[in-house]
């Protein structure tokens, strides 16, 4: 099937079998390996990407089903060598240990800060429930989200 997607702002055209998952398209056909295959059943959030600006799980969506839509991944956040403020905040707060969950967390954070410019700790914890960090570095992740909110509100 012919499928047309806008991935990180770039129009891409594919000829796909219907059983290809959006995550496999991104990782295998586009080499966008930031989004990870974690649990595969919607528990871990490691495959979180933005679909038309909303956080979704790329491992549960058929690629043919998002024909004509916008998909944004972690690779699209930075502008050249200049990291996105959320990425800078995660680095500054040491909110990364093994790094496997980080792209998913950062994409969820992007969606959160778009909806709520100054979230409380409770709101952050609530919104990020769909992302699991198995190194359990949650305290620093919360700090990173607060740090990112400050950076983005200053601009």
């Amino acid at each position, binding site marked *: 099937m012919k499928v047309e997607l806008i991935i990180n702002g770039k129009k891409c055209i594919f000829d796909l079998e219907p059983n290809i998952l959006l995550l496999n398209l991104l990782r295998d056909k586009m080499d966008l390996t930031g989004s990870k295959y974690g649990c595969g*059943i919607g528990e871990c959030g490691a495959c*979180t990407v933005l679909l038309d600006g909303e956080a979704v*799980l790329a*491992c549960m969506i058929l690629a043919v089903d998002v024909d004509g839509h916008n998909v944004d991944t972690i690779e699209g956040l930075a502008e050249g060598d200049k990291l996105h403020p959320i990425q800078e905040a995660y680095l500054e707060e040491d909110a990364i240990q093994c790094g496997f969950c980080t792209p998913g967390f950062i994409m969820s954070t992007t969606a959160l800060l778009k909806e709520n410019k100054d979230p409380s700790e409770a709101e952050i914890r609530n919104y990020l429930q769909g992302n699991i960090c198995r190194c359990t570095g949650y305290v620093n992740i919360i700090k990173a989200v607060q740090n990112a909110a400050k950076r983005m509100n200053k601009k």
Partner: protein
Amino acid sequence: MSINNHNTHILPKFEYYSPKNIEEACKILSELPEDSKILAGGTDLIPKMKEGVLKPKNIINIKQIQGLSGIQEKDNCIIIGANTKIRDIEKNLIIQKKADILHQATKKIGSVQIRNIATIGGNICNASPAADGVAALIALNAEISIIGVKKKKTIKLEAFFKGPGKTILNKEEILTEIKFPVPEPGSYGYYCKLGRVSLDLATVSLAVQLKMVDEKVENIIIVSGSVAPTPLRLYNIENLCINKKITNDLIDEVAEKISREIKPISDTRASADYRYLAIKGLAKEAFSQILEKSRGTR
């Protein structure tokens, strides 16, 4: 042995259909064999396919069908299209203001990422006895509309389920909309559930929607999830509350008697004994919260 017998990132092959209108969808469904599945959000279907629990030969995506999503208020009823995303219901101001119990329940479904994909029609048709949205909708006295090749029918939501994963839907039929009366002034609702973490399916859940007149319960619907093969109306407890004031004594009596009304099993999430006890706590929480809300608005 197929490599797809365990959770895998490669889905088995299937034929894919994406009808543009409901007539076309029903026609496709009626012509295809039984091993066909409707795809809405896919948050239940896709994991089941990865784990090999379901191996549909045909997938019919109903997301391209116009007019199956959206929330509107009409003739004192709220109508929700089957394809409406859970997250859109959660954020909807009509629901927040007029059907608070559904707002509470949708907030408790999965994660933000799941709610951005999953649909209310899928939450219903998946027929899980644990479905959060379903318990709240039954408590709101919801009806559902079903369209087949030639006929359309409307039934009570609580009559839709036959068992875990089983509904009265025929293979060529599609659930199109959910409708319930706007709760009258003096109505209060509360939805609560227990799970290991908030993302979990409910281990036990309870939805209570009631209307009070002069502090007395005029009508009430109580629904419990994960305590029977289908979401369960607790008629005896409802009758116990009718025409009574909600007092601490009544709450104690409800908690005392509610365990007798449920038929739980032991499974991976909890033992039946745990559920018999836990439902008492949920009953106390729900009725106390409703009492508090009713005092707050008087």
